């Protein structure tokens, strides 16, 4: 999608990348949708011997990723992934991008068409800071993980962890893992996760 690695402040991007990396077995075939400049993929390739493919729309980011030697497909996720044949990947990654996609469910289904598993990291708009800003200041939230004014934000959807679980019930897939990301760590289970996590990682697999 949009230049998401640019949109996110660097330390947070690094945290997210690390959390995703921990979920990917070495040697997997990985496609990263909205891969930005390809940093995550490049590390997966060199350190994890993964066979990788990046998908990015922004031409500058696309060129940067080519400069890392990555195979890249230029595509708009909202238009689907027609170029990618069914089932050629083990893992499809969608990091901090779902909230920027017009039809999130369609993209999740598409991910599970081209890959066996989907790793999705979404910002949690249920985080206490977000709630506090709306409640006390009476304004649309601007936080570290959501650093945009409402009129310039690439985010077109606002969801919480609870909302994502609802979405998953509508799709032909199941959540096999939910990892709230609190601070710089992904945790297996957390008390009041929907309040404390700034983002969450979901591992999805087809239901059938």
């Amino acid at each position: 999608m949009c230049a998401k690695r640019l949109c996110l402040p660097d330390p947070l991007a690094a945290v997210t990348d690390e959390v995703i990396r921990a979920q990917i077995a070495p040697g997997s075939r990985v496609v990263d949708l909205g891969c930005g400049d390809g940093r995550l993929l490049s590390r997966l390739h060199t350190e994890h011997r993964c066979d990788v493919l990046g998908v990015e729309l922004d031409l500058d980011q696309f060129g940067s990723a080519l400069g890392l030697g990555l195979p890249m497909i230029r595509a708009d996720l909202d238009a689907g992934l027609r170029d990618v044949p069914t089932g050629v990947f083990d893992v499809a990654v969608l990091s901090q991008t779902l909230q920027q996609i017009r039809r999130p469910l369609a993209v999740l289904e598409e991910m599970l068409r081209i890959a066996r598993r989907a790793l999705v990291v979404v910002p949690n708009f249920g985080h206490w800071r977000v709630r506090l800003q709306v409640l006390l200041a009476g304004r649309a939230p601007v936080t570290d993980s959501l650093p945009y004014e409402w009129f310039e934000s690439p985010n077109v959807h606002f969801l919480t962890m609870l909302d994502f679980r609802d979405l998953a019930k509508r799709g032909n897939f199941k959540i096999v893992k939910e990892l709230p990301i609190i601070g710089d760590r992904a945790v297996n289970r957390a008390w009041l996760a929907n309040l404390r996590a700034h983002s969450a990682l979901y591992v999805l697999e087809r239901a059938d």
Partner: protein
Amino acid sequence: MSLRGALMVIETASASIVDVKEPGMVARKSVTLFSEESPLTLASGKTLGPISVAYQTYGALSPRRDNAVYVCHALTGDAHVAGRHHPQDRKPGWWDGFIGPGKAIDTDRYFVICANVLGGCQGTTGPRDRNPQTDVPWGPEFPFLTVSDIVQVHQALVEELGIERLLAAIGGSLGGMQVLEWAARFPDRLASAIVLAAGAKLNAQGIAFNAVGRRAIYADPAFNGGWYYGEGEPPRFGLALARMIAHITYLSEQSIEMKFGRKLQHSAELTYDLLRETEFQIESYLHHQGKTFVERFDANSYLLLTRAMDYFDLVESHGPLPHVFRKTDARFLVVSYTTDWLFPTAQSREIVRALLEARRHVSFAELESPHGHDAFLIDSQLPMLGRLVTPFLDTTYRDQAGG
């Protein structure tokens, strides 16, 4: 200041003596490949030899001979891809904006080769040349050619130059078809393949336009069944018409609108004169394209090469695409343009899909351009293409050297 001025004068003076070491100057080269005893066997089963190949090179071959980039030209291109033959030349080579020192394909790093295709009329053996058997020009008796025959001659030239494996083959349109054929026929001889505005076959629409172009040539009385080299005129009218038709397919509705719109050529008002051939600027432009084309191109070559293009079908000649691509470990970069209706993006997608299915290292981008099929040749569009080709080549070169 004055000293500097004097030096510049000296430099300019020495440049007038043709010196290929001078930046931007390039020499024509020629080599004879194959022979009567060991000729090239064509796809049609016929044989041809010796074959004279006109080519040009830029930059230096590395000691490891691993930095060679082969440029495949399109239907009516030639070996003169960049630079000038003489300082006085009005125009440089056809892709001068893309190839040269510090340019997208940097000749300070890479050794660039471009040769006129077999059957062409710009120095490589073609119908205009003498048939050794009859001692007159081949004319319509020149053997029927395919893209595969053309690529076999390219490969022979590369071997002649002492290159085991190319860093890249790159080409647009018919040039892109050659690159695809190269990867299919000589899968181990390429480290990468760059395919621009092309397809794994020519679609029926493309064949249709070629058919009309050929019809124009056949219908010209001067064509005389292809025997027009001796006395009399070549089929200028037919060839010019063929070019005009083809040229429209290289443009787009948008680019014609931008460049000409409905602007009139000679007067401010419509003349209501049926016999007036050129009222609109677009008419004048097409006439000009036709007129200049016949100065540099041969009608028999045009027939031959458009047919080679019509016949091109990678699946037909090599089998299902994923199966074809599985045999090569070359990296691919595939590029299409939004307004190209001769080779629409869907044709590039077909290639990309097959490459992904074959689990090859492939990159693909559809670039936004108003310039239709010709976008890969238009100077203003080259920086955008360079942003893909340059890092692609650099990392292929790096990874190849590492591995």
